[in-house]
């Protein structure tokens, strides 16, 4: 999934911090694996059937969200793909069949039923999944949500010219034929001519009572019930769909609805009277109102939270603290902050993709990897708070699939210290048998990234590699590097899994059809193993395959993992239930309350 993008910043004040990962096209949530047993209620802190009324002490008030962004990149449920945005919209407005549990730690990446009565029923080989929608689930106009609305929502993903930027698992997983070009024969609900509606109707079927939805998949999927946590699988009433315009005013199915959305200024969510608490065990819906304040200076956001005055006492954020605030908040266990701050792993691996079209020689790629001063890059990103050294594209908090790859302990031809080894790099270049080409480093421009680029350039120069820096405006970054014509040899990137399975990492980053294949990998032997792993429904042996493939990719030096990222949040003193929610590396928005 992608992190919050760092728009806005290139200019003014720039970004926050280390979290520069922007995945322009990144992935979605990093969710959890875990199992299907957690079927009871979502949040323990929710007390009672009617959460808004119950827990009288917690209901009411206004939660303020402070952000440097000008606006949400998208709020159309089918187009949202930023982890934090998913957490926000799913928590307040867009219900999904299943959702991540509101809980700290590993429990936070397990799923619970939301609109569905349970966690779904697969057939024997995992190619068909059925979910039954609860009674009383309604849109904001009071009309009942049925299978047809979910189906219509999913159909929108196929209109790839209008519904852009969203996750495309519906397209890759549903059993719909493709044409000669590999595009789906179904083109979404807006096209009538030359559009194979029947294929889509066969892929998703509704029961006669419009309650049960069945997905027919093109390959086995053992964890499709995690896939449907994405709001791309949220219901949309066909009558209200305005295509492009739906991104400004999506219809709510959750406890809140939009009362004002002024881009560059604020969004106000108020209670949706037609939300039926009896149909929703998942959302406690404590506050009366949620106000998102856009376009703030990132340093100012930190300073407001530190000051903790007035309305900022009920404030949370989308982005983490900037490095310049860390000393203030975390130094010496200042009691003003210990109770309202958190420091933990985020879902993302920061890495440098090496474009194999530009550097086809494996030894030369390894030379680049060996030359980089990883320790310095972490220091520049903020030191210990920025994260720890990475050794692969799978992170330890994806526990099932993680295993030390040994990348820096011999995989590249020797032990590589964190400051890099220019001599080993030179040796690898000599062994490559070809002259080392001059390379270009692409990165989204922010002050912090500029400094990291200077470090990379210097480290490569020490190994005799000439590197040109190509700073790209943050907002356009992924648009540029995802274009093969424009991409350089070395590319700054960050990625987190869409759910707790490396199937949302390895194939995306290094698969032929991977949506984030910045390394431009086209390796048939590797691809075959990827396909085998994808079709493997035995989770344990699948995990072993991912570990192998991760190691394979690192040995090929398709990517240089620079950091297993961390994030720090600070929140207002009157915010209740605030913690780092591992599902999205964000606050658990749907569960926050205002302490009275």
């Amino acid at each position, binding site marked *: 999934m992608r992190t919050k993008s760092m728009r806005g910043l290139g200019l003014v004040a720039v970004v926050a911090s280390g979290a520069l990962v922007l995945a322009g096209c990144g992935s979605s949530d990093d969710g959890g694996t875990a199992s299907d047993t957690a079927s009871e209620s979502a949040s323990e802190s929710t007390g009672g059937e009617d959460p808004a009324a119950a827990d009288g002490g917690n209901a009411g008030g206004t939660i303020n969200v402070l952000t440097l962004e000008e606006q949400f990149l998208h709020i159309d449920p089918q187009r949202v793909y930023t982890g934090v945005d998913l957490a926000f919209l799913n928590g307040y407005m867009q219900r999904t069949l299943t959702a991540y549990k509101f809980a700290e730690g590993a429990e936070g990446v397990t799923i619970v039923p939301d609109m569905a009565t349970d966690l779904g029923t697969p057939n024997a080989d995992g190619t068909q999944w059925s979910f039954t929608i609860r009674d009383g689930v309604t849109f904001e106009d009071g009309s009942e949500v049925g299978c047809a609305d979910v189906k219509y929502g999913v159909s929108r993903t196929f209109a790839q010219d209008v519904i852009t930027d969203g996750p495309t698992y519906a397209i890759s997983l549903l059993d719909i034929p493709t044409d000669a070009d590999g595009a789906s024969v179904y083109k979404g609900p807006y096209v009538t001519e030359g559009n194979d509606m029947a294929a889509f109707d066969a892929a998703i079927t509704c029961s006669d009572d419009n309650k049960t939805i069945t997905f027919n998949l093109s390959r086995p999927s053992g964890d499709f019930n995690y896939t449907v946590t994405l709001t791309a699988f949220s219901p949309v009433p066909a009558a209200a769909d305005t295509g492009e315009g739906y991104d400004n005013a999506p219809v709510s199915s959750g406890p809140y609805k939009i009362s004002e959305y002024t881009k560059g200024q604020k969004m106000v969510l108020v209670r949706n009277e037609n939300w039926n608490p009896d149909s929703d065990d998942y959302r406690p819906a404590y506050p009366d109102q949620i106000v998102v304040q856009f376009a703030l200076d990132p*340093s100012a956001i930190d300073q407001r939270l530190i000051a903790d005055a007035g309305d900022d006492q009920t404030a949370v954020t989308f982005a983490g603290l900037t490095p310049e*605030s*860390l*000393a203030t908040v975390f130094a010496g266990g200042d009691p003003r902050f210990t109770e309202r701050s958190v420091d933990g792993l985020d879902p993302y691996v920061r890495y440098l993709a090496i474009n194999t079209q530009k550097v086809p020689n494996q030894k030369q790629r390894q030379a680049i990897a060996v030359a980089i001063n990883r*320790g310095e890059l972490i220091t520049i*990103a903020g030191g210990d708070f920025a994260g720890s050294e990475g050794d692969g594209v799978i992170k330890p908090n994806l526990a099932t699939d993680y295993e030390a790859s040994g990348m820096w302990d011999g995989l590249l031809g020797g032990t590589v210290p964190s400051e890099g080894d220019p001599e080993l790099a030179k040796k690898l270049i000599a062994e490559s048998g070809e002259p080392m080409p001059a390379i270009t480093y692409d990165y989204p421009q922010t002050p912090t990234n500029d400094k990291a680029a200077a470090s990379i350039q210097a480290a490569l120069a020490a190994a005799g590699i000439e590197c040109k*820096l190509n700073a790209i405006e943050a907002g356009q970054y992924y648009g540029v590097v995802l274009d093969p014509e424009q991409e350089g040899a070395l590319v700054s990137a960050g990625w987190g899994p869409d759910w707790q399975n490396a199937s949302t990492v390895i194939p995306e980053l290094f698969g032929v059809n991977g949506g984030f294949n910045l390394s431009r990998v086209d390796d048939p032997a590797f691809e075959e193993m990827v396909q085998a792993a994808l079709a493997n429904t035995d989770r344990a042996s699948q995990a072993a395959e991912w570990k192998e493939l991760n190691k394979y990719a690192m040995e090929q030096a398709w990517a240089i993992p620079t950091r297993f990222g961390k994030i720090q949040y600070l929140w207002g003193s009157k915010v209740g239930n605030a913690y780092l929610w591992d599902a999205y590396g964000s606050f658990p928005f749907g569960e926050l309350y205002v302490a009275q």
Partner: protein
Amino acid sequence: MSLTVEPGSAEGAALLGNGASSGDFAGLSLRALAWRRLRRDKAAMVAMVFLLLVAFIAIFTPWIVGLMGLDPYSFDQEALDPALGSIPLGPWGGISWDHPLGVEPLTGRDIFARLLYGARVSLFIASTSVLFIVIIGTTVGIVAAYKGGWLDTLIGRLTDLILAFPFLLILIALSPVLTQRLEAIGFSPEWARFGYIIIVFVVFGWPYLARLIRGQVLSLREREFVEAAVATGAPTRRILFKEMLPNLWAPIIVYATISLPTLIAAEAVLSYLGVGIIEPTPSWGKMLSDSVRYFVIIPSYLFIPGTVLFLVVYSFNVFGDAIRDALDPRGSRNN
């Protein structure tokens, strides 16, 4: 429509044009008188000495910094505290014998060295831009006034058009395109940025001076000595360079002195907006915009480049004002 006075804004566009007031500098060939007036202005003299010192340091930066055993590019992780967001170890932003003005957070690069190298960059960009503005502005202004007719009209419309653009916005918006173009024709990324900034400064800077000069030339043409030269059949070039140009120095010098500090400040604004000088090259603007974010925990980091930038710009302004007073007796406090 023609402007007789340049706008004094500082919000971008006008950064270039401000200050050049409508003062009529005609007939000021009394250079000695002006210099005497200037010398009596103590503040101006202090400013001038300071600026000469800065210029000296900027020219000899590599030697000065080298002698002190510093360099502006090398990272120093040892000087930083990884447990506190990579801020400098020690008080006052890590001021020590090794780093006389402390180090930059996140990188540990030496601030003293970067400040001095930054002076080079800032002054180079500002003075080169002013040089081109003066050459182009003066030439176009003279040509427009002297040739008149459709050429004058054309130049008039062109300046109108350029001055109608929201300069700052255009500058930001075109930055990616133009720097890429410059890189494509063989500039290094560093020089492409320099070139881009200079080009934009010049393109949006010359029209003001051209108008000023045009007005000067038009009024000079009516003067006796020029009319005399024309009557004696002197060639145009001789009239322009021998008779006109000496009388244009006053407005040109004033304009240049006032433009320099605005361009130095404009460079800082560009860096703040992320379209200025690119890493690893140091610049004052970048130091300032970086340091603003650290003001709470490392005030000295903000204070040092802020003070230096302020002193230089302020000195230029004081000096520029004094020159204007000296050259323009009517506005002067000393006559």
